[in-house]
C-alpha cells in the first residue's frame, strides 16, 4: 500500500490496527490524519477568538506545518475519497486556516501607528504627480475667479451663491466685510464647527475623491469651481482694501483645509488616471492598486479636515489678530510639508533596497 511504503516501520502495527477498523483505503487515510486536523482546528478556533496568548509555543510553531499538511490532505482527498462529509470538512478547515495564516498581519491600532509614522507620507509621496496637477489646477482656478470678477462684477454672482455670499458682495460696505472676518463667542464656534463638518469643504474633499471614478474629470472641475469661488471672494476684499486680513482669516484653517482638498482631489485623480491609463496591468488591477494608495491618503485627509474644522470653529473665532492667524496657518503648512516630505523615508529606502537585491539575485 502506498501509505505504508512511506510510513516508518514502527507505524506498521498501528496500520494493522486501522485495517481492523476501516475497510476503505480513504477511511484509513482519514483516520491516520484526524489528530492533526483536530489540533489545527483547535489552534484556529483560538486564533479566531483573538486568544493568541492561550496558544502554546509548540502549537504556534506547528501551525504552518499543520496548515500545509491539511492543504495537501485536501488535494489528496479530492482525488481519492468520495466521503463528501470529509471533503467539506477539510474545505472549511483549510479555508479557516488559510484566512488565519494569510490574514491581516496587523490589527487596527498597529496599523494606525504605522500609518502615522510613515505610511501616510509614503502614500502622499506616491501620488506626487497628481498633487502637482491638482495644485496647478487650484491656482489656475483661483486666478480665473479673481480675474473674471475683476473684469465684470456680475461674474461674482454666477460663482458665489447668495447663501454663501451673505453680504460679502462687490462694493459692499467695509464694515460688513470687516465684521465677517472678525471673531465670535463659543456658541458661534459650535455652529461653525457643526456647519463645517457637514458642509461645503468636507463635501468637496470627499466628492473630489469619490468622483475620481469618472476618470478624475469631475474632481478637477469641482476643485476648479471651488477655487474660482475663493478667487472671486478674494477680489471683493482686495477691492475693499482688506486683502491681507482676508488671507489671514482664510489661512488659519485654510492652509490645512485647502491642502486636504488638494490631497483628496489628487487621490481621486490618481484613481481616474489608473482607469484611463492602466498601463500594462488590467483595468481592475490598476484601479485596485491606485485605490489602495488613495485610501491611505484619504484617511489622512479626513483627519486633516477634522483638524481644519476645529481650527475654523475655535481658532478663527477666538483668535482675531491677523498676525497670529498668519503664524498659525503657515507654521501648520510648514509642518505638513515637512511631515509629508520626511517621515517614513527609511522604510521606503529599505523596500527599494530589498527589491533591488532580489532583482540582482534574479
Amino acid at each position, binding site marked *: 500500500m502506498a501509505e505504508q511504503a512511506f510510513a516508518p516501520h514502527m507505524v506498521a502495527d498501528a496500520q494493522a490496527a486501522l485495517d481492523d*477498523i*476501516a*475497510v*476503505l483505503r*480513504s*477511511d484509513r487515510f*482519514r483516520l491516520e490524519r484526524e489528530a492533526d*486536523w483536530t489540533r489545527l482546528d483547535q489552534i484556529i478556533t483560538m*486564533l*479566531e*477568538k*483573538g486568544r493568541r496568548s492561550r496558544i502554546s509555543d509548540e502549537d504556534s510553531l506547528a501551525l504552518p506545518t499543520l496548515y500545509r499538511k491539511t*492543504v*495537501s490532505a485536501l*488535494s489528496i482527498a*479530492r*482525488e481519492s475519497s*468520495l*466521503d*463528501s462529509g*470529509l471533503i*467539506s*470538512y477539510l*474545505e*472549511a*478547515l*483549510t*479555508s*479557516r486556516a*488559510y*484566512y488565519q495564516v*494569510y*490574514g*491581516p*498581519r*496587523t*490589527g*487596527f491600532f498597529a*496599523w494606525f501607528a504605522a500609518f502615522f509614522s510613515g505610511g501616510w507620507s509614503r502614500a502622499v509621496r506616491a501620488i506626487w504627480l497628481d498633487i502637482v496637477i491638482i495644485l496647478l489646477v487650484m491656482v489656475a482656478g483661483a486666478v480665473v475667479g479673481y480675474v473674471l470678477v475683476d473684469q465684470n462684477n456680475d461674474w461674482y454672482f454666477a460663482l458665489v451663491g447668495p447663501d454663501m455670499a451673505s453680504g460679502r458682495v462687490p462694493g459692499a460696505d467695509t464694515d460688513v466685510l470687516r465684521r465677517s472676518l472678525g471673531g465670535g463667542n*463659543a*456658541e458661534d464656534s*459650535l455652529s461653525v*464647527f*457643526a456647519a463645517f463638518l*457637514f458642509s461645503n469643504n468636507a*463635501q468637496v474633499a*470627499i466628492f473630489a*475623491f469619490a468622483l475620481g471614478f469618472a476618470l478624475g474629470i469631475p474632481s478637477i472641475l469641482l476643485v476648479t469651481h471651488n477655487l474660482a469661488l475663493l478667487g472671486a471672494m478674494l477680489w471683493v476684499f482686495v477691492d475693499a482694501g482688506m486683502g491681507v486680513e482676508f488671507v489671514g482669516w482664510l489661512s488659519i484653517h485654510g492652509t490645512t483645509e485647502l491642502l486636504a482638498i488638494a490631497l483628496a482631489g489628487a487621490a481621486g485623480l490618481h*484613481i481616474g488616471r489608473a482607469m484611463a491609463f492602466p498601463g500594462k496591468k488590467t483595468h*481592475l488591477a490598476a*484601479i*485596485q492598486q491606485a485605490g*489602495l494608495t*488613495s*485610501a491611505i491618503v484619504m*484617511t489622512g485627509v*479626513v483627519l486633516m479636515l*477634522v483638524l481644519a474644522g*476645529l481650527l475654523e*470653529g475655535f481658532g478663527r473665532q477666538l483668535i482675531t489678530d491677523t498676525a497670529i492667524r498668519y503664524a498659525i496657518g503657515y507654521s501648520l503648512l510648514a509642518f505638513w510639508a515637512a511631515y509629508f516630505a520626511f517621515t517614513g523615508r527609511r522604510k521606503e529606502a529599505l523596500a527599494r533596497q530589498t527589491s533591488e537585491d532580489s532583482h540582482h539575485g534574479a
Partner: protein
Amino acid sequence: MARNAAPALRTSGLTKFRRMLVTPEGVGLNISLASASARFGALMLDMVFINLIYIAYFLVMFLLFLGFGLGFEELFTANPEAVNGLLSILFVVTILFIFIVRNGYFLYFELGPRGATWGKRILGIRVAARDGGRLAPEAVVARNLLREVEFFLPIQFLSILSAQGNTSSFTLIAGVIWVLVFAFFLMFNKDRMRCGDLLAGTWVVLAPKQQLTEVVAPQDSMTSAARYGADYRFSDAELGIYGEYELQTLERVLRDGSEESERTVYVAICTKLGWEPGAGDERAFLENYYTQLRQKLESGMRFGKRRANKYEGEG
C-alpha cells in the same frame, strides 16, 4: 488544479456564487460569495449595534450632565455662559464620537482575525482578498472609506437638509438616486462587489465552519456481520448501477440516520437490483452497499475513472 473544482461535492450555496480561490500553495479552495441579501442584513445588524453604542454614549452623557447639574447648580445659575461653553465642547466631542465609532467599528472588526463585523459574523460571512493573497489593512481601510461615500454621507446630508426644512425635491431625488446607484452596484456585477470592494480588491464570502463527522460506515464487513448478523456481498454488476451522486445521497441518508428515509432508499435499491425487499435489516444492507460501492468507485478514481451519476456510462 482546475479539475479539482469540478467534482460536484459542494451541496451548499448557489452555483453562480461559487468561486475558486487558489492559495499560495496552489490548492484551489471552493468558496462561495455572500448574497446581496446577506450583505444587506449584515449592514442592518451593524447599524443596530452602532446605534446601541450611540444610545449607551448618550445615556452616559445624560447621567454625567445630570450629576454635574446637581453638583454645581449654584455655579451654573451664577454663570450661564459656562453652561453654553460646556455644551458646545460636548457637542463637538459628540460629533467626533459619532464619526469615530461609525468608522472605527468597521475597521476594527474587519482588521481582526475573523475579518468580519458582528453583523457579518452572525450571518456567517467575512471579507477576503480577491486575489487569494493576504488581506491588506489598506484594503480594509479603502473599502470602508468608500462606505462613507456610498452610504453614510448621502444619508447624513439628506437627513440634515430635511431637518433644516430646505430640501428641494431635486436634491432629495438626486440624493436618493445616489444612494440607490451605490446600493445596487453590487447587484450588477457577478462577484457581488460594491464600489468599495472593487477599489480595495476585496469581496465578501461565506465563512464556513464545520465539525468533522464520523466515518459513515466504520466497521469492517466482518464485524458488520457480527453486529447485524448479516453480511451482504454485491457483485460488480450490482454495484455498477450507481455513480458518485447516488453514493453521496446514500451517505446523507446514513448520516441522518432517519429510519424512514433509510427504508425508502433500501426499497429503491432492492427494486433496482431485482431483490425482494425484506424488513428489519435496512441499516446493515445500506452500510454494506455504501462501503462496497465507495470502494468500487474509489478504486476507479485511482485509475482516473470517475462516474458522476447513474446516467453516465461506466468507465
